[in-house]
């Protein structure tokens, strides 16, 4: 038994093509993701907005003071460069600043393109002017307000919102990595297909030879499957180690559960490959193509190329999300990272378990008790 297992393992590791797709390709893709997204993790973070301020000759310049001193989350909101109008124009044109403001009483905002920072800038200036108006309104109805500390009140900026309890940071970029790991798990389908082809007398010469050998076919098949599972587990472990230690993808805190869902995903993949191998009565190339479409397509629908797709599918076609094994594995990983509870993880694992059992039984029924008088 052990000899059969080792022999098969050696055989698998000599197949350079499947080694490339299973071991190298995911690592290559993870590396690409890592390099491409390295700066995108922080792209949404607020950074001080660079602006220029053109004074119109007024002595005391309140707006400038307020712009310079404005803070948000202990960070300066604006980095103000006070200069004349021609320099401000040049700075804006060269992209060194995002906007410039002219005038103190009735400020005008000059920008080059629409954007969020420009919106913040405008809403800030609006509130500055509106505050001045409010003061005028109040003095009209309550002339004593100034004495009662109106100026102080108007300068005082309170925070009216607070962050709810802080869980894990929402990061849709993680979807790429989870989908890639999930894709690698389900990619075991190709190994499952190979095993079926190698054991079935009507599919390959080796299968025919094995059928006349004295060994029990099921025993051999199990040995081979176990070897394929081992080899495939190697690829998952390698990819996981690479993601976790080298490029530091955040998988949440429960690595044991993560490993379990990977194992289950790999089994589901083997069973899927087995089922297609046994039940699709077409050429090997056609079977391979079907699996590639199923696994690649599954990866695509789980957000491996565009994270939005995963959300859209879950929203619009929830059934599709629940029969796609790649999505189930990716979603379980996502829930481990993002949720405080395990409900969603258990649900994903349960559905994936059912799929694995159904496919496993289907391939078993297809393989058992096949005898040929002549082939």
């Amino acid at each position: 038994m052990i000899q059969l297992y080792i022999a098969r393992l050696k055989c698998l590791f000599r197949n350079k093509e499947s080694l490339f797709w299973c071991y190298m390709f995911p690592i290559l893709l993870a590396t690409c993701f890592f390099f491409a997204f390295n700066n995108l993790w922080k792209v949404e973070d607020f950074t001080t907005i660079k602006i220029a301020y053109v004074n119109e000759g007024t002595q005391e310049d309140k707006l400038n003071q307020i712009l310079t001193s404005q803070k948000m989350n202990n960070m300066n909101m604006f980095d103000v460069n006070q200069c004349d109008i021609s320099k401000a124009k040049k700075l804006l044109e060269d992209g060194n600043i995002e906007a410039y403001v002219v005038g103190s009483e009735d400020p005008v905002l000059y920008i080059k393109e629409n954007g969020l920072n420009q919106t913040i800038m405008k809403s800030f200036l609006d509130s500055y002017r509106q505050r001045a108006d409010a003061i005028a309104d109040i003095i009209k109805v309550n002339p004593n307000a100034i004495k009662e500390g109106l100026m102080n009140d108007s300068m005082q900026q309170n925070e009216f919102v607070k962050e709810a309890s802080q869980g894990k940071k929402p990061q849709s970029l993680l979807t790429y990595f989870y989908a890639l790991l999930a894709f690698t798990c389900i990619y075991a389908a190709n190994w499952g297909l190979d095993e079926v082809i190698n054991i079935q007398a009507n599919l390959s010469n080796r299968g025919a030879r094995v059928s006349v050998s004295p060994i029990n076919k099921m025993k051999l098949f199990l040995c081979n499957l176990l070897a394929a599972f081992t080899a495939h587990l190697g690829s998952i472990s390698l990819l996981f180690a690479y993601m976790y230690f080298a490029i530091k993808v955040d998988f949440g805190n429960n690595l044991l559960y993560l490993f379990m869902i990977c194992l289950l995903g790999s089994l589901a993949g083997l069973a899927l490959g087995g089922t297609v191998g046994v039940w699709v009565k077409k050429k090997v190339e056609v079977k391979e193509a079907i699996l590639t479409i199923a696994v690649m397509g599954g990866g695509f629908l789980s957000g491996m190329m565009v994270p939005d797709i995963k959300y859209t599918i879950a929203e619009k076609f929830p059934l599709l999300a629940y029969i796609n094994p790649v999505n189930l594995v990716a979603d379980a990983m996502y829930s481990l990272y993002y949720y405080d509870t395990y409900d969603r993880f258990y649900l994903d694992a349960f559905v994936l378990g059912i799929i694995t059992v159904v496919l496993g039984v289907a391939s078993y029924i297809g393989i058992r008790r096949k005898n040929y008088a002549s082939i």
Partner: protein
Amino acid sequence: MQVFNTYFKILKKRLVAILIYASIFLFLTIAMTENQNVNNKKFETQKVNIMVINENGKDALMDGFMKYMGSYVNFVEPKEGEEARKDMLFYGKVQYILTIPSKFSNEFLNHGTVQLTKQTVPNSTQAMSVDNAINNYFNMGKVYLKNVKNINVEQLNSYIAENFKKQTSVQLDVKVQDDVAYNNEFNEFYFNVLAYIMIAAFITSVSMIMFSFNGIDIRRRHTAAPLTSRKMNIFLLLANLVFVLAYIIMFIVVGFMLNKCRMINLSTLFMWLNALVFGLTALSISYLVGITVENRKTIGALSTAISLSFAFLSGIFVPQQYLGAAVLRVASFLPSYWYVKANRTLVYITSLQNKELAEVFGYMGIQLGFAAAIICIALVISKRKRQQAF
């Protein structure tokens, strides 16, 4: 001529793969550009998607607040269940979830210190912009409440609404006309992605054909054939060029049709030229792959590996401005990096006098340099293989 015909006979067998790549490309382009609109020359506030969970219930203060917020945010219909809301935040469907606690209005109007709660991507610019708007509104409200005696909510709302009418005037300094900018930016995106597809499709097709022509048995037979090796190479080269040219021209036409503001200006013309130049480089890579590999299946693997790594590293999938300095340095050893850089520069080219045009020619020159270097390597390998054949 037989060589020429055989080339296209083999190509026909690879047609499915080429068509698959073409459809992936078209799908990507249409999906990514569908939501792009021609910008207006006017200033527009960029609104943040926000979901409001109002436990306080509707009242006059909330009405005024929501009306005010409407000019800064898009309200998204609240979803049932914590998970569904968190999902929306994760996938960026909303950037801000604001919970207004019960009795908030009451507390606020009676000078209490109750706060609203938010769920956001911490420290994001979007969250900051919404925070700003919320704080502005309530700070202003607080000033009125404190300093105007016996003010009621309706008065407060009308004061703030009146103040809100005073808007800062914004001057949008536009250099390039909107439809020109759209046209050029669409072309940039389209031709950048085309580079990925060219590498992937050329390696699967051209490399496969070169591989077939370079099999040892075929080469031996060719040597015995009356056709000289020189003639054969010329025909092969010709066939390659015809294929590449036809492929690129086809996609230039398709790109032109897909462009909502299609126009032929200097920028467009140079992007076409740039695509042709890159086509030659991609061809040279495919040629090299075709004559070096020893196994048909390796070609498929290399096609995926080379095209994806080129695309990710040189700024085809993620714009160069978001890539790290180290990545860009590595990428500068890839021809696609210079291709993408040329396209970026071309977006702003309006006349032949632009001094940036010289840069573009430089970038094209570098691509041709890559092509020449790769062809030289390929020739050396090819010669060694010829000598090995006997």
